[in-house]
């Protein structure tokens, strides 16, 4: 157990190292200059630009820049944003809340609706509803989420005027929960659509797989009620593969959030990333990249831990 844990940790560090080097190289070698924004301001001299470049730490060779950055990363100093000179971690955490609220709501919604759909389909395999839901999930996965965003905005905001088309709360208004929820509803639904389809497909297969097992036949032969068989025997077993999916969905939700945040001008981390790419704000972009990479590896570790708790076979193996 400890050995696998250590080797896991090593693998995680290697992966993060590759991610950081690749990301760093990609960003720094990409065309465009972080100083472009300053160069445009009137009265800016070459000397002044040189000073700024020095302040940004861009006047040393790239490998050295990387080492300086890594050193900072390890001691918790992730650098400062090129745009407003705020510490990167402050900037990220300033935007993280909005993304977590959006992605959290969406994933709750997706898990709940998707898993229910999947179970329904698996319990009634081959029925009309089951076929319909299978087709529906392919359709949902085949259409870019932002399109749903646009259609929803044009229907519910523009045409019907029921819900706001963007932002986290009404401009200038005081904070109220109702207002916040109204703003949250559309983006959360749009973000949830894709993962709902994934959850539905996956749950259906997981439950169908369990239903075909010998021990379900045993449970029927014992004279248990269908209800008891479903909740106690089927779902308990189907839970295991579903935990895996939950772990895998973590990084995907961030990707989805990036697009959804753009459509709904939601002030989260996805839009921050897009902006920092546009302004060549390397420290913030790298920070977000590392943050999401850590989240992804963390997700897989949490998955394994949950798995160990939920699966008596693994628990027994550990003793």
């Amino acid at each position, binding site marked *: 157990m400890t050995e696998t844990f250590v080797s896991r940790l090593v693998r995680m560090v290697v992966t993060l190292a590759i991610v950081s080097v690749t990301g760093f190289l990609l960003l720094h070698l990409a065309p465009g200059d972080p100083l472009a924004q300053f160069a445009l301001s009137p009265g800016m001299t070459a000397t002044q630009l040189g000073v700024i470049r020095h302040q940004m730490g861009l006047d040393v060779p790239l490998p050295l820049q990387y080492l300086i950055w890594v050193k900072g990363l390890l001691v918790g100093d992730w650098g400062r944003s090129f745009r407003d000179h705020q510490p990167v971690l402050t900037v990220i955490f300033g935007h993280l809340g909005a993304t977590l609220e959006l992605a959290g709501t969406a994933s709750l919604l997706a898990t709940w609706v998707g898993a229910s759909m999947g179970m329904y389909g698996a319990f009634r395999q*081959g029925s009309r509803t089951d076929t319909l839901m299978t087709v529906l999930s392919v359709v949902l996965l085949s259409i870019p989420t932002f399109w749903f965003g646009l259609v929803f905005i044009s229907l519910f905001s523009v045409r019907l005027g029921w819900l706001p088309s963007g932002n986290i709360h009404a401009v200038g208004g005081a904070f109220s929960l109702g207002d916040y929820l109204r703003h949250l509803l559309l983006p959360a639904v749009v973000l949830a659509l894709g993962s709902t389809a994934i959850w539905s497909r996956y749950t259906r297969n997981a439950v169908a797989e369990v239903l075909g*097992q*010998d*021990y379900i*036949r*045993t*449970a*029927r*032969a*014992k*004279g*248990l*009620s269908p209800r*008891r068989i479903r909740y*106690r*025997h089927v779902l*308990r*077993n189907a839970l*295991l593969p579903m935990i895996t999916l939950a772990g895998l969905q973590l990084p995907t939700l961030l990707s989805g959030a990036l697009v959804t945040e753009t459509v709904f001008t939601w002030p989260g981390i996805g839009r921050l990333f897009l902006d920092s790419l546009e302004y060549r704000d390397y420290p913030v972009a790298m920070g977000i990249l590392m943050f999401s990479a850590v989240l992804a590896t963390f997700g897989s570790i949490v998955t394994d831990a949950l798995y160990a708790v*939920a*699966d*008596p*076979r693994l628990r*027994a193996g550990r003793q």
Partner: protein
Amino acid sequence: MSRPILSVRKLAVTFAQGSGPDIPAVEGASFDVGAGETVAIVGESSSGKSVTAMALLGLLPAGAGTIVSGQALFRRDEAHEVDLLALPEREMRALRGRDISMVFQDPMTSLNPVLTIGEQIAEVLTTHDGLTRRQARATAVDLLARVGLRDPGQIVSHYPGQLSGGMRQRVMIAMALACRPRLLIADEPTTALDVTVQAQILALLRQLQAEMGMAIIFITHNIGVVAQISDRVVVMYSGQVVENAPVRDALDGPLMPYSSVLFRTVPTYDAVLARRRRLPTIPGHVPDPRHRPQGCTFHPRCAHFRPGVCDMFRPSLEAAREGHEVRCVRWQEIARG
């Protein structure tokens, strides 16, 4: 023989497919099981023996494609007799696991891996006997002790993955006998086990039968097992009962050519007990249920095949003598030699 506890008449099971011809898995099977008696159903795979068992318990896939007909009268107690094939699902459920229970072939996959042994036995008791959880758990410990497991107090909180195959099959038996059923259906319960463990499980079943007095339908393709455990043998071939006789008669003087080949390498009852033998392979294949041959379904593989007779008329099951039935047009000729 006293009045049978189970009387199966003209049981037929057909699986209709959306496309393609129907599959008649069982065609008009009839046999009786007396109280406390052990009836072995033997046959090659796809002979319809497992489907028969599943049909009796109403466990066949409930899809529109499954058509079950016939009658299976089961004596619940001295006063009540029910037709298992006509019983509404609700009442069938109350019967399953209480009056009739079943032990399956593969103990490695037949127990739920994420529930403890105790939970799995206890839920039979809470469902049927209305025991509280605490009582059910205590009963589960007793049952585990009865099926010969050491440390039953420990084993109740184990998961199936922590037990060996033989131990799991004992758990399955404990679970099946929890409510003292009148009939136990055992579908190849020893096939997946080691030879030594097989013997132990058979001994256990016999011992428990002596103690509890339930009847057993024992489905197997192992002739050695038949000799050891059964009172009566029902031989099935391609969905039909082809011979039904007391075990000694069947093994010593089978009348249907198929049974003879089936028992060929084990000529006498005692020899069977001396060395357990597996089913010998018979030349040819069990016919595809969708395209069964005309006449006697065994004729393409039969050494006594007579053209114009065996491939023309489908023989019916006739009584050769008291309690011994055979399905063969030529059984008298063959018996005379």
